[in-house]
């Protein structure tokens, strides 16, 4: 033990004199191991750790797959009556629950917050083994068709909206005019399976009967993505067997119900029974493997680089090692010394890695919760510490082994007697050249790929949409009374509200339509002339909409006030849909059938690209009803509108409405572009990390190479070589190898392109030439730096420093 402590003390004392070396190793290995630990812990959580629910392996979600059997449309969503039919008639689950995910305004609180609401049946609580902080879960008294108005709050909602009020169970909460008695608060430790929206827990739970989709209870032609069915499968029944039972149960009934519909002719429904775990995992498995592959790639480069640095360090230590050898140290003694050093370095690196992985967990939880499941369960655990310990040990052993491997013990032992040159520790010139070529090739490929992806992400972020959302706000209203106001009442109220909002000094214009950035829905359209069916996006707009957002009219006319007032059956379509309908695009006046209603096309607008979309879809626009509860406000320059101001405007008109949502459209645009922003940041970071790692790697090799040429450099200096001569010499000698590395990278990239032409075609354009030139400049500068930096310690000292020990 004392020997162990002695060796490590010696190692630490020696390393303290090489702060630059220590810092480079710790920063490089700490960062990459930190990223690896972070991603591996996530992978372990998602792929290995069971869900935190009782008998989680028996929990399944039933999917409801509609297929047009033409390969054009396939959707996974329930019809409302189809879901109830399944709930009442299935026999493969011991227990099952219905859930519908939605949002609603809590109008009983003065600040009227918009909450995420889960409408569910009582089985949901027992299926997931929900623990309560206060009160009780839903019971049989809240089962289907009981209409018992009770509510359960999430722990966070209880804390945030009710300040942990101890008498919460005596309070009521009001949503859409219905008052619900609070009967429970979920436990703080309960982890909700995020089946509604990844990254968002529900704020409150209400009985299924109150869900907003009940108006579709007899509609077998409308599907709703928010309807979910989960159940605990009976023992002995497999998922495939369950599908075989459930598919006919769903399809036969549906076929009976839509038998008269031309649109659904030939369509079928099947069930898809998938484990809850795989549903929660979603397609993040692929993303996870990409992340692991990316981090492993970085780790390989980093560890190769650090191995180079260790070799360089060993070369530097050869005199010291020669003295040990002369005093009788055997090769294993030298290994122990080197292992002690690598252990100390890896121990510090792994500490840094654990800190970095903690920061990574926080980053994932705060920034990536909407794209990565279960991240709220991430924490430093036994797996993380075990992996950290394993990696530290493996890398310490590997680096020590590689360093020992390059020692020519025989030459080292005789080095002191012969006062020889650096032959005791050597890596062949050819091997060093291979290392340089590899480093340059990998760094060039990675930097080029990352800059290309960065450029692509920035291009999408900066791409003009074809319409304006600057200074625009979208507002959505909900009803707050039960029964809700009639359409006529709403039409009057909305007209007054529009006028109230228009009178706000900061508001320039108002349109009664959904946000231009989203809320398109699919519509089944038939062209009576050609008898062709289409499923374009559609939305409802008023007379001001297109003018307000600056979307150009190409042909015909826009909606008139009369079209809105009289709810005329007219439609405006975009140029993309016009081309699909008629090759010549001449569509003004043609009629289109939407579920039996005939609409006349009155105008063609220019198609616009929604943020983050690479194509322009077929779209059509109908007159919005006057009762439409969504508006877009354009504000005067540098003005804003607050939630309180809009709520005050609503109060001026009626108490039957609440502000459901207010969103600044530039912010919404940025939220939609989050994947592109994330891609831009991560590719820029990866390019920077690669540049750093490439620099470390090249420095390691060239430092070692320069070390090997120390006496030659000294000799050249002795006979009159100036610094510029020596810099030129080292650069010239390495240029060929660096050029070979660059050529290798071009070959690798060409091969990658040839094997993935379809996938990469959209990225290939002339714009890549400047990116490649920039990459070459970056690699060239890096290589020049890596040539100069190790040399500077020699050329900035008198020549005798290099010649000592040469005789």
């Amino acid at each position: 033990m004392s020997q162990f402590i002695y060796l490590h003390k010696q190692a630490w004392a020696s390393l303290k004199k090489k702060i630059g070396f220590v810092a480079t190793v710790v920063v490089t290995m700490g960062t990459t191991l930190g990223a690896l630990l972070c991603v591996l812990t996530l992978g372990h959580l998602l792929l290995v750790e069971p869900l935190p629910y009782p008998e989680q392996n028996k929990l399944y979600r039933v999917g409801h797959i509609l297929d047009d059997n033409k390969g054009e449309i396939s959707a996974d969503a329930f019809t409302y009556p189809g879901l109830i039919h399944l709930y009442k008639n299935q026999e493969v689950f011991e227990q099952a629950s219905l859930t519908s995910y939605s949002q609603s305004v809590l109008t009983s609180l003065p600040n009227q917050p918009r909450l995420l609401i889960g409408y569910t049946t009582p089985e949901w609580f027992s299926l997931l083994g929900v623990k309560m902080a206060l009160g009780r879960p839903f019971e049989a008294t809240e089962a289907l068709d009981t209409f018992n108005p009770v509510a359960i709050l999430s722990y966070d909602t209880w804390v945030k909206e009710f300040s942990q009020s101890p008498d919460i169970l005596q309070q009521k909460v009001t949503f859409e005019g219905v008052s619900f008695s609070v009967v429970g608060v979920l436990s703080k430790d309960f982890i909700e399976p995020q089946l509604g929206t990844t990254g968002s827990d529900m704020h409150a739970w209400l009985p299924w009967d109150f869900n907003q989709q009940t108006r579709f209870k007899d509609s077998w032609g409308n599907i709703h993505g928010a309807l979910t069915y989960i159940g605990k499968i009976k023992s002995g029944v497999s998922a495939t067997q369950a599908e075989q039972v459930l598919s006919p149960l769903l399809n036969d009934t549906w076929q009976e119900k839509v038998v008269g519909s031309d649109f659904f002719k030939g369509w079928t429904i099947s069930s898809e029974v998938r484990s809850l775990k795989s549903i929660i995992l979603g397609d993040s498995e692929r993303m996870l493997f990409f992340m692991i592959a990316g981090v492993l790639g970085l780790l390989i480069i980093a560890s190769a680089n650090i191995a180079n640095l260790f070799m360089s360090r060993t070369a530097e230590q050869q005199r010291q090692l020669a003295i040990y050898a002369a005093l009788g140290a055997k090769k294993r003694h030298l290994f122990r010394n080197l292992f002690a050093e690598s252990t100390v370095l890896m121990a510090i690196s792994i500490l840094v890695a654990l800190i970095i992985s903690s920061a990574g967990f926080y980053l994932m939880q705060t920034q990536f919760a909407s794209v990565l499941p279960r991240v709220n369960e991430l924490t430093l655990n036994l797996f993380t510490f075990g992996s950290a310990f394993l990696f530290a040990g493996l890398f310490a052993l590997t680096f020590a082994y590689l360093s020992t491997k390059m020692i020519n013990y025989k030459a080292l032992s005789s080095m002191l007697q012969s006062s020889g040159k650096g032959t005791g520790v050597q890596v062949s010139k050819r091997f060093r050249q291979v290392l340089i070529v590899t480093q340059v090739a990998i760094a060039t490929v990675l930097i080029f790929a990352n800059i290309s992806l960065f450029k692509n992400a920035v291009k999408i972020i900066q791409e003009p949409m074809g319409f304006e959302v600057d200074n625009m706000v979208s507002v959505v209203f909900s009803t707050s009374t039960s029964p809700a106001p009639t359409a006529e009442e709403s039409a009057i109220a909305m007209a007054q509200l529009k006028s109230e909002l228009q009178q706000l000094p900061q508001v320039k214009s108002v349109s009664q339509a959904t946000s231009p950035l989203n809320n398109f829905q699919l519509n089944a359209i038939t062209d009576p002339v050609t008898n062709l069916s289409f499923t374009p996006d559609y939305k409802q707009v008023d007379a001001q909409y297109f003018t307000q957002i600056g979307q150009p009219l190409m042909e015909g006319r826009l909606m008139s006030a009369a079209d809105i007032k009289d709810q005329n059956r007219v439609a405006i379509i975009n140029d993309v849909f016009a081309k699909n309908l008629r090759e010549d695009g001449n569509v003004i006046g043609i009629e289109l059938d939407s579920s039996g209603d005939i609409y006349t096309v009155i105008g063609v607008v220019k198609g616009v690209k929604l943020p983050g979309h690479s194509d322009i879809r077929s779209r059509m626009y109908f007159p919005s009803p006057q009762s439409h509860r969504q508006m877009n406000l354009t504000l005067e320059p540098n003005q804003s509108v607050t939630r309180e101001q809009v709520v005050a405007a609503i109060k001026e008109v009626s108490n039957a409405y609440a502000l459901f949502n207010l969103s600044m459209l530039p912010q919404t645009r940025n939220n939609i572009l989050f994947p592109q922003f994330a891609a831009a940041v991560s590719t820029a970071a990866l390019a920077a990390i690669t540049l750093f790692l490439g620099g470390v790697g090249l420095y390691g090799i060239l430092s070692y190479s320069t070390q090997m040429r120390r006496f030659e450099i000294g000799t050249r200096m002795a006979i009159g070589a100036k610094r510029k001569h020596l810099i030129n010499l080292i650069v010239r000698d390495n240029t060929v190898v660096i050029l070979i590395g660059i050529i290798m990278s071009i070959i690798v990239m060409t091969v990658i392109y040839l094997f993935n032409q379809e996938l990469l075609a959209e990225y290939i354009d002339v714009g890549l030439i400047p990116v490649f030139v920039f990459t070459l400049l970056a690699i060239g500068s890096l290589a020049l730096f890596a040539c100069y930096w190790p040399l500077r310690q020699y050329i900035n000292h008198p020549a005798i420093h290099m010649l000592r020990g040469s005789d």
Partner: protein
Amino acid sequence: MSNIKIQMKGISKIFETEELETHALKNIDLTIYAGDYVSISGPSGCGKSTLLSILGLLDMPSGGEYVIEGKNVTDLSLDEAAEIRNSKIGFIFQSFNLIDELSVFDNVALPLRYKNQVPSDSDIEMRVNECLALVDMSHRASHKPNQLSGGQQQRIAIARALVAEPAILLVDEPTGNLDSKSGDQVMDVLEKLNDRGTTICMVTHDPRYADMATTQLKLLDGAILTTPALSEAS
């Protein structure tokens, strides 16, 4: 006075570590005239190599004044020192210090390629061939150093030292890595060069070779024990 090649006054060299200060050279006064053949000898650690390093501007003195051919070189930048070494000093090392990857011809030509005004290829060729002929190694011009014996390598090193027509040859234990026969041959070459007027300053352990010099300096503990008047006196 124009005959003076090298003049040192009060040269000292101190090596400092965190805890220790070593006076390697103490107040050295030395004048070497054109055509001198000076040997420096003394026990290990007496400062011979340090003195030779400072003479050759491979290292800088801690104190004193150093003049080569009338130019004060005491406090030069690294590049200025390199230029003086290139134009006025020729080095011959104990272990030859030839560059393995270069041919004999290229090794010899190297100092010419570091000149401010690099001579034309034909001038370089002519000068290199002259020097190789001088050490009787013309027939090995295209060989690599590792194809030659130690004695031959040292003769190549002498040719390289001469190629830029230096003011003085600084020679460090030229026979240290050679057998006695090869050593004698190398010393013959040096003697001939001195006979032709080349100024030589040589560090050696071997009293036999020290005796070949016209002037012998003995160093002990960083100081010159004997201070002959060199050429002027002799």
